[in-house]
């Protein structure tokens, strides 16, 4: 194509563009229904042409929104589990409150188990101490029964000797006759009773309570339940195996009897 022809074609294109622009401008300055119709059609056409772009943008938006929602769901799930935990804690605390009210003649001081004692598996540390007017040899119970007694008192915490400690012993009463015996732990959640006469009628599952004879433990605190009992001919007393009622391995909240 020669130079002059290219020049004319370009000139033609430039002229066309300029006058098409002018005529389009003139056309759209009119305010008639025909122009509106064309405007509508152009809008529809643009919408149609840009539909894939809009669709893709929507997909991206949905994707990012989805990620955000997943985050929110995770957060809500965590919050929900936290609330469920609070609910169960609340139920437990209410039960403890009821338990405390069921012993009106005893002054119960609630305490939390801070940690297991590092030096012995038969003791725990609770978050009350001298500041709460705790003294040595005060009984500690949970909602199920006797847990132990305080042995060392700090300002804000105390050490509790557990009922499962081999050196632990407590005077208990059992049977319809309220006969006295001594509870001693053996292993795990089990223990035995010393001094139960053969004549005493026992039942499996029977709850034994503190006798109140001792100066430390008030009477009628549940200690254990009878698992089995046997009678040897060469012995004057029965062999009574009991199971500790307090849930030693699941301790969280306890009460100190003041």
């Amino acid at each position, binding site marked *: 194509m020669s130079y002059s022809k290219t020049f*004319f*074609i370009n*000139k*033609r294109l*430039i*002229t*066309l563009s300029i*006058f*098409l622009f*002018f*005529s*389009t*401008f*003139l*056309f*759209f*300055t*009119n305010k*008639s*229904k*025909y*122009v509106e*119709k*064309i405007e509508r059609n152009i809008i529809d056409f643009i919408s149609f042409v840009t539909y894939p772009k809009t669709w893709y943008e929507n997909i991206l938006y949905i994707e990012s929104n989805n990620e955000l929602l997943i985050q929110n769901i995770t957060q809500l799930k965590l919050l929900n589990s936290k609330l469920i935990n609070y609910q169960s804690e609340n139920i437990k605390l209410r039960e403890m409150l009821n338990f405390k009210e069921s012993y009106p003649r005893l002054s119960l001081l609630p305490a939390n188990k801070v940690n297991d004692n590092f030096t012995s598996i038969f003791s725990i540390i609770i978050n009350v101490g001298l500041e709460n007017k705790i003294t040595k040899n005060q009984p500690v119970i949970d909602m199920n029964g006797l847990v132990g007694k305080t042995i060392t008192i700090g300002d804000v915490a105390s050490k509790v000797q557990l009922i499962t400690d081999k050196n632990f012993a407590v005077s208990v009463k059992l049977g319809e006759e309220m006969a006295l015996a001594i509870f001693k732990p053996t292993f795990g959640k089990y223990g035995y009773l010393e001094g139960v006469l053969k004549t005493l009628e026992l039942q499996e599952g029977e709850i034994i309570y503190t006798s109140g004879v001792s100066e430390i433990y008030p009477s009628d605190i549940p200690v254990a339940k009878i698992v089995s009992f046997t009678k040897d001919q060469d012995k004057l007393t029965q062999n009574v195996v009991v199971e500790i009622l307090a849930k030693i391995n699941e301790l969280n909240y306890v009460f100190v009897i003041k």
Partner: protein
Amino acid sequence: MYLLLNNYKIIISNLLITFVLILFQSYFPSIITSEEFLLIKFDFFLIYLVYLSFLYRVYLIIIFAFFIGFFQDLLVQSDTIGLYSFLKVLFVYFVGHLKDSNKIWSMQFKFLFLLLVIFFHNFLYQYIFINDINFYAIFYILIEAFINLILLVIIDKVIYNGKIF
């Protein structure tokens, strides 16, 4: 530029012919169709533009077509000023292609090309005014384009001695 600045006689004569053609066209009888607002008309001015495109430089005729289209808009349909200008400018541009390739293209292809250009010119014009473009409307527009093409061929053979075809 020669046409616009130096040859005043040609400009004036062409302008006069154009005005006469537009007036003549507006009083020339049209064929009524079954479609509302759709009339089959003889577009003498369009044929004249083809002739002018072949005779002078196309970009000058584009400018000319714009102003005459604008004048036609004012006369025919003042609600859509700019529509005829737009269509005439586009029409002349495509006729310019025909002019460039006149010696290369076959007769049949030239007929087909002009038929399509006239058809789209008329279709776009009618599209603005007809609410529902149906098969019959398209058919009538095609007939109109065909009639105008025949008229163009006749005028080309009789008046221009086959300059276009």
